[in-house]
C-alpha cells in the first residue's frame, strides 16, 4: 500500500527544493536567452551568494581579517549587501570577460564559464576555507507552514516557492510588456538588426547578467538557509540546474521553472524510494540519468526553440 502522508511529505519537499532550484535555473536560462552564453558556473554563482551572506554576517571568518575590524551586518542588511554584490559581479563579468567573447564559438564560451566556476569556488575557498559556515540565528527563517496530512514546509522552502513564482511571473511580464523587455528580446533574436535600430547591446548584456546573477544569488542564499549555513555542496547544484533547463527548453524561463520543479520532485522521490537499494547519494544522480534520457528523446525540451540548420 502507498503510504499517503509519507508520499505527500516527499512531494512537498520536492516542490520546495525544486522551487529554490528554479531560481538558479531561471538565472541560467535568462542569460542564455539574451546573450547566448551557456553558463556552466551557475552553481558557483549560487555558492558566491551563499557565502557572501555568511561573510557579511560575520567578516571574521575570512582568515586574514581580524575580528572587529569590519562591521558585522545584521540579517536583512547582509542579504541586501549580497544582492548588491551580485549586481556588481554582473557588471564586472560583462565588462572584464564576456565582452571579449561576443560571437566566439560555443566551445570557447563554455570553457570560459567552466574556468570562471573554478575561479569563484577557488577564491571563496581561499577567503573562508573549505568548511561549512553556519548562518547566524537572526537570518535563518526558523518558522514553517503547516500543510494537510500533518506535514509542514520549512521557512526557506516556503520563501522559495513564493519567490520563484513571483520571479517567473515578473520575468514573463517583463519580457512581454515592458520596453526594456522587448529590447532584450530584440537583442536575443538578432543582435545586428537590434544594433542597427539603435539598441545598445552592451547595456542589454549588462542588464541580463545583473538580473541573472541576482536571481541566482538569491537561490544560493535560500539553499544555504535550508541547510542552516553555506557549504561547498551547493556547487553541485550547477549540474542539477542543467537538467532542469534542458528539460524545460534552454531559452525558456517558464520552462526552467517547470523543469526545476520536476527535478526537485525526482530528487526527493529518489531519496525516499530508491536510495536504500542503490546506495547513498543516488538522489543527485537520478536527475542526471533523466537528463541523458531527455537529451536522446527530446533534446529541445518542453518549450525550447528548435534550431533549423542551414549551411
Amino acid at each position, binding site marked *: 500500500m502507498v503510504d499517503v502522508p509519507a508520499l505527500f511529505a516527499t512531494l512537498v519537499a520536492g516542490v520546495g527544493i525544486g522551487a529554490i532550484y528554479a531560481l538558479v535555473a531561471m538565472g541560467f536560462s535568462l542569460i542564455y536567452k539574451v546573450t547566448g552564453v*551557456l553558463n*556552466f558556473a551557475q552553481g558557483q554563482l549560487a555558492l558566491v551568494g551563499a557565502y557572501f551572506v555568511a561573510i557579511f554576517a560575520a567578516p571574521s571568518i575570512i*582568515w586574514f581579517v581580524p575580528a572587529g575590524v569590519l562591521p558585522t551586518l545584521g540579517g536583512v542588511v547582509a542579504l541586501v549587501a549580497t544582492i548588491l554584490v551580485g549586481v556588481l559581479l554582473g557588471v564586472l563579468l560583462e565588462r572584464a*570577460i564576456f565582452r*571579449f*567573447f561576443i560571437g*566566439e564559438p*560555443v*566551445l*570557447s564560451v*563554455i*570553457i*570560459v564559464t*567552466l*574556468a*570562471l*566556476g*573554478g*575561479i569563484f*569556488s*577557488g*577564491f571563496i*575557498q*581561499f577567503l573562508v576555507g*573549505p568548511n561549512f559556515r553556519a548562518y547566524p540565528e537572526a537570518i535563518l527563517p526558523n518558522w514553517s507552514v503547516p500543510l494537510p496530512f500533518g506535514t509542514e514546509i520549512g521557512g526557506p522552502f516556503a520563501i522559495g516557492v513564493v519567490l520563484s513564482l513571483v520571479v517567473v511571473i515578473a520575468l514573463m511580464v517583463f519580457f512581454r510588456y515592458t520596453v526594456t523587455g522587448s529590447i532584450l528580446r530584440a537583442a536575443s533574436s538578432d543582435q545586428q538588426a537590434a544594433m542597427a535600430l539603435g539598441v545598445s547591446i552592451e547595456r542589454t548584456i549588462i542588464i541580463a547578467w545583473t538580473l541573472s546573477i541576482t536571481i541566482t544569488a538569491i537561490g544560493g542564499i535560500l539553499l544555504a538557509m535550508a541547510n542552516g549555513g553555506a557549504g561547498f555542496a551547493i556547487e*553541485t547544484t550547477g*549540474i542539477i540546474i*542543467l537538467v532542469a533547463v*534542458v528539460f524545460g527548453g*534552454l531559452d525558456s524561463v517558464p520552462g526552467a521553472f517547470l523543469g526545476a520543479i520536476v527535478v526537485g520532485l525526482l530528487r526527493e522521490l529518489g531519496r525516499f524510494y530508491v536510495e536504500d537499494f*542503490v*546506495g*547513498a*547519494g*543516488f538522489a*543527485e*544522480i537520478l536527475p*542526471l*540519468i533523466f*537528463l*541523458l534520457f531527455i*537529451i*536522446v528523446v527530446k*533534446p529541445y525540451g518542453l518549450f525550447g526553440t528548435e534550431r533549423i*540548420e*542551414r*549551411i
Partner: protein
Amino acid sequence: MPCGEYFTDYGSRMGLFRWRTQRIALVFGLPIPFLLPFVIGGGTLNLFAQIYIFAIAVLGLNVILGYAGEIVLAQGAFMAIGAYSTSRMLGTGAGLLPAMIVGGIIAAGVSVAFGLPAVRVKGFYIAISTLALQFIAEWFFLNDKAAFIHGGVQQTVPVDVGLLGSFIRISSRTDIYFLALISMLVFALLSLNFSRTGIGRSFRAVHENDLAAAVLGINVFRNKLLAFAIGGFMIGFSGGLYAVLIGFLDPSFFTIELTLQHYVMLLFGGLGRVWGALLGVAMVAILLDNLQEFFNTYAPDATSLIPVIFGAIIIVVLAVEPKGVLAALGQLKEYLRKWPYAY
C-alpha cells in the same frame, strides 16, 4: 621575396619530418628523455612520468575535442574507469599491458555510450551529457554497494607487476618512467599519423562544418562515435598507467578539477595540434608542480588559489591567443624569418 627551402613533391610536403633541422633535432632530441633517469631521480622523475601519462590523456582529449570538435567534460571519469579496470585486471594476473588495454577498451565503450546523443544534438548537449557522466562516475566509485564491480573505493595497486603475464617485471620508478615514455611516444606517433589519414581528415571536416561534411558524403554520426572511441581508449589507457604510477586509487584523484587541468594543458599548448598538446602538458604540469611547492612552503592557506590561477590562464589564453602557445611560436618564427621587414 621570402626565400628558404621549398617542397618539390607532395610526399615531402606531407612528411612527418619535413626539414633537415627537424631530422637533426630528432636525432639529438630523442635520446634525451631516455637518458634522463641517469641524471635526475626521485620526485623529478615522477613528475616527468606524470607528464608523459597526462600527455596520453590530453592527446586523447585532442582527438575528441581538437579533431572531431566534440566538447567532452569527463576526463576524470574516463581516467577513473581506466584506472579501476586496470587494477581489477591486475588482480587476475594477466599482466600490465593487457590490463591497461582492457581498461582503455572499457573507457572507450563508456565514452561511445555517452557520445550516442550526438546522433541528434551537438555541442552543448554533448558537453552536459559527459559532465553528467563525470558526476555519475564519481558517485559510482565512491559507492560501497558497487564494490563488486569496481572492487572497493580505495585500492592499492601492486608495485611489482609483469608487463605480459609475469614476464618483464615492472618494479621500480625507472621502469614505470620508461613504460610511460614509450607509451607516450607510441600514442604521439599514432595521433600524428592519424591526423593525416582519411579518418583524421573526415574528423576535421566534421569539426569545421558538420552539415557540409554530411553533404560531402561523410557519415557524421559514425565519425563522431569513432572519435569518442579512440579518444576514450587513450584516456582510459593513461588512467591505467596513472594508477600504476601513484600505486593507490581514490576517487578524489579523478574529479572535475582534473578535467579542467587537461583543458588548460590542451588550450595553452594549441588545440588540434599534437605538438601543441605535448608542449602544453609539459609547461602546465611543471607550472602546477612549482605552484604547489611554492604555496606549500610559503602560503599553505592559499593553495586553493591554484584553480583561480588556472582559470585566469584559460580565460586570458582564449581571449588573447585562442590557438595556443604553438601558434604564437609560429608567429614568432615568421617574424624572425622576415626580419627586418614587417611583411
